[in-house]
């Protein structure tokens, strides 16, 4: 694996508060790492240290072989960074702003024009190039921030809440862009949207109170959920007394009746995450219950997230 970002024992103290407490991880090319956590968990602080904005109290990050603490300029050359809220010089137009970024990143003449053109194309900014950034919609402002981060085709992309405040279509566009870029780059995105982790991340780190509490693929995290491999039966409007028979199946831990947005149903939880879907399906067929749908649950990331981030705080 081609490790692009190596975070080593990062700590950051703000007065008496330890905002980031011994955070270590690596990100390889092709990985999209989702940084998950409640507000104030230390996601942004960690990103600010990796990008060299904030000096760590101790520890460091190595970006493409350059140490952000001892050789910040070399490391910053390899990073594309979208800070939280996508700040940009609002009195400039996207065109002049991107020209400034290109120049300061060391591109001139035809090379600069080619890179600006490519960044504009990737973020679909053509229609607003000559308007001052302050007059643009939130979605366009975010795209200007992304264009700026992509301009030098960096190996490492660090995006702090790239879809925050965007409408569903804009979110989809940004996620499509991240997916398209993913194979060639090492990407870290922070988010508090769990659906985003499913949509773009190959790996997720859950962080709360400055500490890493979980690190794994979205699938691995979901498998920690109580709902992992659970089976849901939808029963239309007919209530049936199926609990007794279901409980007798091998591997079933518990059975719960639910009545939620999906309608009336039964959720069957397996013991130790075992696969029980075939047994349940067989029973449904032999018993002849009026089941309208049968679904295997993958596990719920929000449940895992809540379990992990609240048990510690309690």
């Amino acid at each position, binding site marked *: 694996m081609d490790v692009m970002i190596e975070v080593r024992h990062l700590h950051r103290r703000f007065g008496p508060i330890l905002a980031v407490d011994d955070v270590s991880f690596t990100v390889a090319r092709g990985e999209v790492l989702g940084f998950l956590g409640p507000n104030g968990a230390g996601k942004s602080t960690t990103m600010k240290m990796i990008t060299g904005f904030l000096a760590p109290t101790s520890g460091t990050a190595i970006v493409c072989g350059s140490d952000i603490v001892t050789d910040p300029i070399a490391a910053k050359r390899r990073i594309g960074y979208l800070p939280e809220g996508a*700040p940009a010089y609002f009195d400039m137009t996207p065109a002049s702003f991107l020209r400034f970024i290109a120049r*300061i990143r060391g591109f001139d003449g035809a090379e600069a024009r080619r890179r600006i053109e490519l960044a504009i194309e990737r973020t679909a900014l053509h229609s607003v190039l000559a308007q001052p950034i302050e007059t643009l919609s939130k979605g366009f402002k975010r795209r200007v921030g992304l264009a700026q981060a992509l301009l030098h085709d960096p190996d490492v992309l660090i995006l702090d809440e790239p879809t925050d405040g965007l409408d569903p279509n804009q979110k989809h566009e940004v996620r499509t862009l991240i997916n398209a870029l993913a194979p060639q780059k090492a990407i870290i995105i922070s988010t508090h949207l769990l659906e985003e982790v499913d949509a773009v991340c190959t790996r997720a780190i859950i962080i709360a109170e400055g500490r890493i509490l979980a690190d794994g693929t979205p699938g691995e995290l979901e498998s920690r959920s109580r709902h992992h491999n659970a089976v849901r039966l939808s029963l239309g409007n007919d209530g049936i007394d199926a609990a007794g028979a279901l409980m007798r199946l091998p591997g079933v831990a518990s059975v719960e009746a639910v009545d939620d947005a999906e309608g009336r149903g039964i959720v069957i939880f397996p013991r130790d995450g075992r696969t029980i879907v075939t047994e349940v399906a067989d029973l449904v067929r032999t018993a002849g219950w009026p089941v309208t749908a049968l679904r295997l649950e993958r596990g719920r990331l929000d449940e895992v997230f809540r379990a992990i981030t609240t048990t510690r705080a309690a």
Partner: protein
Amino acid sequence: MRSTWIIFRRELASYFATPLAYVFIVIFLVLAGTLTFFLGNFFDRGQDDLQPFFSFHPWLYLVLIPALAMRLWAEERKTGTIELFLTLPISIGAAVLGKFLASWVFAGIALVLTFPFWITVNILGSPDNGVILASYIGSFLMAGAYLAVGAALSALTKNQVIAFVLTASLCFLFTVSGSTIVLGFLTGWAPDAVMNAVTSFSFLAHFSAIVRGVIDLRDAVFFVSVIALFLFANAVLVELKKAD
């Protein structure tokens, strides 16, 4: 060097992107003219020099230069662009210098636009143009010193109004140190060395020496040192306060 130049260009252009530049230049010229002709009795005194014009510069700068400097860092911190700016592959020195030079050149442009005074005095008489040139250089150096103070204090706060007030206050102290306002406060308890040190920090004293036509290298060195000192402080303060 290259990044300093690129930052300088962006900053200078940003002055002209808003009405600030034009408002500043117009007010500067109007005030300079008013003070020179009315308070300075430019015509009545019947001398062909620009003494009344230059003698008001410290007071003019005291009001106007903080307005030029207040936005340099406070605005970046307020809008969050500082996070973008300082994660670009540039050194903090280039960032501080580029911003300062842009504001200084802007002040220089305003100063150059006072050339009608120079033409007027040359039509009416035959002034010592060497002294006038020295005075312009002295005025420009003094503007740089005010700006360096303002740039450093602008890094202290997100609020431009606070940056303005802090800068105006500190610049006022620098301007009048050595005058009775400050010395009266110190007399009687402060040792002579302190009195002398405070006196030697007076912008007014160093500037008047230059305007009289006494071109002493020490006066120029004084302003350059103040600029260097406050730019250094600026870099330190930016590092210290950027993430607050």
